[in-house]
């Protein structure tokens, strides 16, 4: 599959919007890191944004829920909300399965 191929080449760009005060955000970051280590080792970059510190970004990136993971690359953009505790849905939501298969 072509998206998978390109995904192999380019680095995954992920953004995690959190609220540092909320324990949910910590869980989300831990979960996300775990998925990436499993499926995308070395091919990902996660940027964590504390929305409380950067409230402007809530509008710019159209963030409603916290925590939210946005997959900027590879295209298309994907948005996943929640603390990623539902692994199955998280992997489907981010298309990590496909990306991870070749490994």
């Amino acid at each position, binding site marked *: 599959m072509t998206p998978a191929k390109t995904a192999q080449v380019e680095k995954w760009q992920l953004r995690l*919007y959190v*609220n540092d005060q*909320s324990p*949910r955000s910590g*869980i*989300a970051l831990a*979960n996300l890191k775990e998925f990436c280590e499993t499926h995308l080792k070395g091919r990902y970059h996660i940027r964590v944004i504390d*929305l*409380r510190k950067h*409230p*402007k970004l*809530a*509008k710019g990136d*159209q*963030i*409603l*829920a*916290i*925590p*939210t993971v946005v997959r900027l690359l590879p295209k298309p*953009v*994907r*948005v*996943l*909300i*929640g*603390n*990623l*505790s*539902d*692994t199955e*849905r*998280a992997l*489907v*939501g*981010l298309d990590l399965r496909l990306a991870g298969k070749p490994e």
Partner: protein
Amino acid sequence: MKKSVVKRAPPVRQLPKCPTGIQGLDEITGGGLPRGRPTLVCGSAGCGKTLLAAEFLVRGAAMFGEPGVLMSFEETEGELKANVSSLGFDLDGLVRRKKILIDYVHLERSELQESGDYDLEGLFVRLGYAIDSIGAKRVVLDTLEALFACIPNEAILRAELRRLFRWLKDKGVTAVITAERGSGERGREQLTRHGLEEYVSDCVILLDHRVCDQIATRHLRVVKYRGALHGTNEFPFLIGETGISVLPITSLGLNHRISNERIATGIPRLDAMLGGRGFFRGSSILLTGTPGTGKTIVAANFAQAAALRGERVLFFSFEESPNQIVRNMQSIGLRLEPLLAKGLLRFHSARPSLYGLEMHLATMFKEIAAFKPHVVVIDPITSLMDAGTGSESKGMVTRLIDYLKAGQVTSLFTSLTQGGHALQQSEAAMSSLMDSWLLLQDYEGNGERNRVLYVLKARGMAHSNQIREFLISDQGIDLVDAYIGPSGVLTGSARVAQEDLERAAGLASQQEAAQLQRAVERKRAALERQIGGLREDYETEALELRRIAEQVGTQTRLLTTERAASGILRQADAKVVAGPRAARARPGRPRVK
């Protein structure tokens, strides 16, 4: 917002209100929405929720100096600006001056996946940031229910909404939340599709766009207003050029300036019936009549007279096109064309069924505001009222009259009735709003119909109680005294016949009198002749008597002298009595006496 929290602190009996600036709404709610609390505005699609909310913000920013945030879940900033500016709000300018902040929340269910637990802190952060960045006192969330379509977990959403309203109250902002009306079997009980009313419990306003007899009218009702008195009725409202206008009939003021100036009707005899000087300026006149009684003609006369005085006249016609009116009026000698050309007369024609009553009124208000007429003619008001239903039409008409009166505009309404006296009563509802009421009626009889006019009422002036016959000729209108005789009112040819009859009778009695006079004359002449004859007789007799007397005298003298002579001769000494002998000797004529 902190300020408003402080403001709320002193314990006042009345809840602090936040004026909306929306025409009529503040009157219903007794001053506005509850300050520092959320208000729910619900209604079905297309009934003006977004507009009401937007107007609340815009007026707040422009009139009360309270900046506002509009968070839209449905329309983008550009769309909103376009929609609102079409109603005369300069949203763009307010946004530029940082009085209003529009935040469009883009929601796309298909792009969103969920996994595990989350909250809507992003929305809070976003809204909080927007509020703080311009110091907003007002917030609109339009429509929050869009969240239900994109947040998959309803349990989380509901919990977060509850938290949101709590948070809004804590922020001290006055919020308006719009929501779609719940539909289906539960629609009656449920105000909103997703039951938002259970979170917003301070004030609920229900908007409704109802179609009745194929005519759509918008209504507004304050379902709930915790801790405050409010109008509980359903009030019609309209969306016009200047935004929303709620029409609470009960709050109409009755304190217009009034004028003592009188204006002529264009029909001299009618002026004479109205105390000789016509109607008061700024009064409202109702002209009722059955079909074909000449309502439009009277109205056109009135319009022409006003325009000839140099006043601007706005003629709303709901039955005829302007050209048709001009042509028809030409046939009775009214020349409206030059007045049209001079711009003193303007027609506005529209089919009543073209749009709903509220829209008609909105366009009429707009036309009146633009043209600033001195006189407004509405021909006929009844077809306009057909565009609405029952009481709401009356309310709208009240509003219209009120509007015109406030502007010192003299208004003439024609009203079509279907004949019969009972209908006068059905007009009574509207007539109570009118200052003067003329009635045009048909009298049928002798195989013809004739028009009559009378003044049913004319507030503040002496007016004739007489029925006048109303004649329309190619020279225009004339009013003639109707013949009122023992057999009732006679009009038309019956009146003419009666007049002829009277004239003939008059002539006959005149002739008779002349004849009688001649006879008397003759009698007098005869009598005089007779008297003359008698006097002649008398005189002849008197003459005769004198003559006889003289004769007797002479004879006696003669006799005496004769006797004396013979006595001398006979030496007689006895006295001779001449009288009786003489009388016996000459027997008199037979006496006539």
